[in-house]
């Protein structure tokens, strides 16, 4: 049996947290409906200490749950009952900044925004910007393959990581590089949710700050017109740096809260941000305004202050919706954009069916929906009803050719939904991949990939060419 005293012996005292009260801050991540206290939390300050923790955990067959800042939204960093939480937030040094080659080498505990702040003096920034960027760590970003508002143009984490160093449970180091010949091991590590190894160093790509950035806001009387505008902008050959959509409920909530000047009579709202050199932004802006000419409201930011204030409503949409309900549940599905209007209509029907309100705020440019389901956890049965509603939304996403998670990860939250997206054979491949990296299954076990048994019990095993729900929706 694992003895926490051994951790205290092997590591400096202030790196080890034990005891019921002390470990409480680590009992959950951003998905706080699930809570579990671990055996111990360790916050190593160097790699040698990380190796010692791994070695002890291996020796005693104790699961290791790696954690960054704990801002994840799918329970990926939820402790297991008999686990040690390996918190990497103290490994927070920026080791190298190379403005010439536009890269930075950082430790996993460096916060996302801290990279952009450190390289700002060179006219550079780190492009992926998950909404938790002031707190979340780059190591966590790699583990989740995090997205954000700007990934339509600048890609996800996987597109912005040049190399990683990782440790296996045995403490062996593996260096993975973007330009290496052979299998895409680096891509595999992105989004692996702490199940394959411990990421100890990351080389990130830096992006030159654009010369000019402008934001267009458009309000529409019909959701379908707004969805069509999204497709038309992309089809016209423009890739905005952000293309965000909000539905009526979200607009009202945001305007009530942030007073950003959003048209609260609109049925849907589009925010389209263009960036680049002076000339290209000017040309694209003209095209976009042309495409959006049927909008009922149209605003263009004239300066940086106006741009930021127009963003304010969107950026505060989650807390704004949060004010209207005791609790809300944030979903994260993706769909091909051409189904935007159809899927929103279905969600609204489901909302009536379940008697739960939904606000839709999402990255329309890459078809990443974030329906917020409003509920009250203190009403018996309402959380269960909310989860059932959420699962139906995710199934709908899969059925039109999308995915059950765009950027939040599977964690513990979407294990059931995984059964809908993948067949037993595909899940089997995932389990075998984990076994290659972690034969003892001690790295964040039970997360990200459901057991075949769980899916069979659920009885919702993936349908191949069989009868699908929502037969009225045209398929890919």
């Amino acid at each position, binding site marked *: 049996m694992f003895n926490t005293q051994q951790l205290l012996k092997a590591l400096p005292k202030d790196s080890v947290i034990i005891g019921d009260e002390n470990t409480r801050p680590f009992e959950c991540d951003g998905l706080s409906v699930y809570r579990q206290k671990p055996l111990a939390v360790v916050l190593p300050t160097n790699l040698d200490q990380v190796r010692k923790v791994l070695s002890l955990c291996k020796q005693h067959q104790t699961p290791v749950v790696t954690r960054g800042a704990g801002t994840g939204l799918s329970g990926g960093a939820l402790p297991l009952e008999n686990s040690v939480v390996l918190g990497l937030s103290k490994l927070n040094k920026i080791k190298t900044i190379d403005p010439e080659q536009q890269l930075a080498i950082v430790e996993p505990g460096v916060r996302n925004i801290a990279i952009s702040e450190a390289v700002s003096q060179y006219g550079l920034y780190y492009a992926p910007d998950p909404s938790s960027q002031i707190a979340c760590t780059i190591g966590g970003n790699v583990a989740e393959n995090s997205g954000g508002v700007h990934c339509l143009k600048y890609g996800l984490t996987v597109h912005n990581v040049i190399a990683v160093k990782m440790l296996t449970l045995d403490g062996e180091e593996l*260096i993975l590089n973007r330009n290496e010949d052979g*299998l895409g091991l680096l891509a595999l590590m992105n989004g692996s949710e702490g199940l394959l190894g411990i990421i100890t160093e990351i080389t990130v790509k830096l992006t030159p700050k654009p010369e000019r950035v402008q934001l267009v806001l458009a309000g529409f009387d019909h959701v379908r017109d707004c969805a069509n505008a999204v497709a038309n902008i992309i*089809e016209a050959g423009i890739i905005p740096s952000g293309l965000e959509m909000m539905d009526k409920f979200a607009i009202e909530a945001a305007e009530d809260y942030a007073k950003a000047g959003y048209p609260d009579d609109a049925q849907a709202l589009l925010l389209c941000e263009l960036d680049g050199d002076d000339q290209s932004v000017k040309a694209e802006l003209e095209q976009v305004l042309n495409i959006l000419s049927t909008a009922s409201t149209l605003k263009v930011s004239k300066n940086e202050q106006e741009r930021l204030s127009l963003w304010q409503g969107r950026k505060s949409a989650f807390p704004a919706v949060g004010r209207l309900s005791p609790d809300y549940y944030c979903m994260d599905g*993706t*769909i091909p954009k051409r189904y935007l209007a159809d899927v929103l209509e279905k969600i609204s029907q489901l909302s009536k069916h379940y008697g739960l309100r939904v606000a839709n705020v999402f990255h329309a440019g890459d078809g990443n929906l974030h329906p917020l389901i409003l509920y009250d956890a203190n009403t018996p049965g309402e959380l269960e009803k909310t989860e059932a509603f959420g699962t139906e939304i995710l199934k709908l996403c899969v059925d039109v050719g999308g995915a059950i998670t*765009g950027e939040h990860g599977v964690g513990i939250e979407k294990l059931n939904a995984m059964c809908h997206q993948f067949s037993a054979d595909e899940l089997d*491949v995932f389990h075998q991949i984990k076994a290659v990296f972690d034969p003892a299954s001690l790295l964040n076990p039970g997360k990200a990939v459901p057991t075949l048994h769980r899916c069979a019990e659920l009885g919702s095993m993936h349908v191949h060419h069989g009868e699908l729900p929502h037969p009225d929706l045209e398929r890919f």
Partner: protein
Amino acid sequence: MNIEQIQQQVIDADQLQIVGNKSHLKFTSSPTLEMSLYSGLIGYHPEELVMTAKSGTRIKDIESILGHKGQTLPFVVHDHENATIGGAYALGSPELRDAVLGVKIIDGQGRLLNFGGQVMKNVAGYDVARLLVGSKGKLAVICEISFRVLPKAYAIHSTSSAELITPTPSAIRDYIEHGLKNVFDPNGVFV
């Protein structure tokens, strides 16, 4: 040739060499699986910036279709004019890997599997679609590939292709690469 026929060939064979239009291969030894017989578009949605093609489709033909909509592939393939998308995927490049969104594959046991999808953002399950880029036809038959395309104006920046480097050999890397080969092709069918 259809998917079921490819599956049957995999199941029946002791050893099989997967080939496209052989624009890169100098010679072949084992019985070959001719993926050039499995070609054509599955879907193209310019407004989604996404195309899905059978792996035997020639890059030249893909570019020609994309060109009509003012779009292009976000990666360059410096090769023979008959080069296929499947061949380029098997050889691999970082830019091609970036563009891949999903694959339909047949593993060494003849199982038909789907990984990734047709959307930009998808973090459900391990990223097998990008893992197999550069697998040289040794792990699985790549049947269909979904990939991101770009408006021509945006592709200018990504036309320089970086030189691939050979990773420093190590026991742990060997172990993992062998392990992954065993996951997809436990009987060593693909040579």
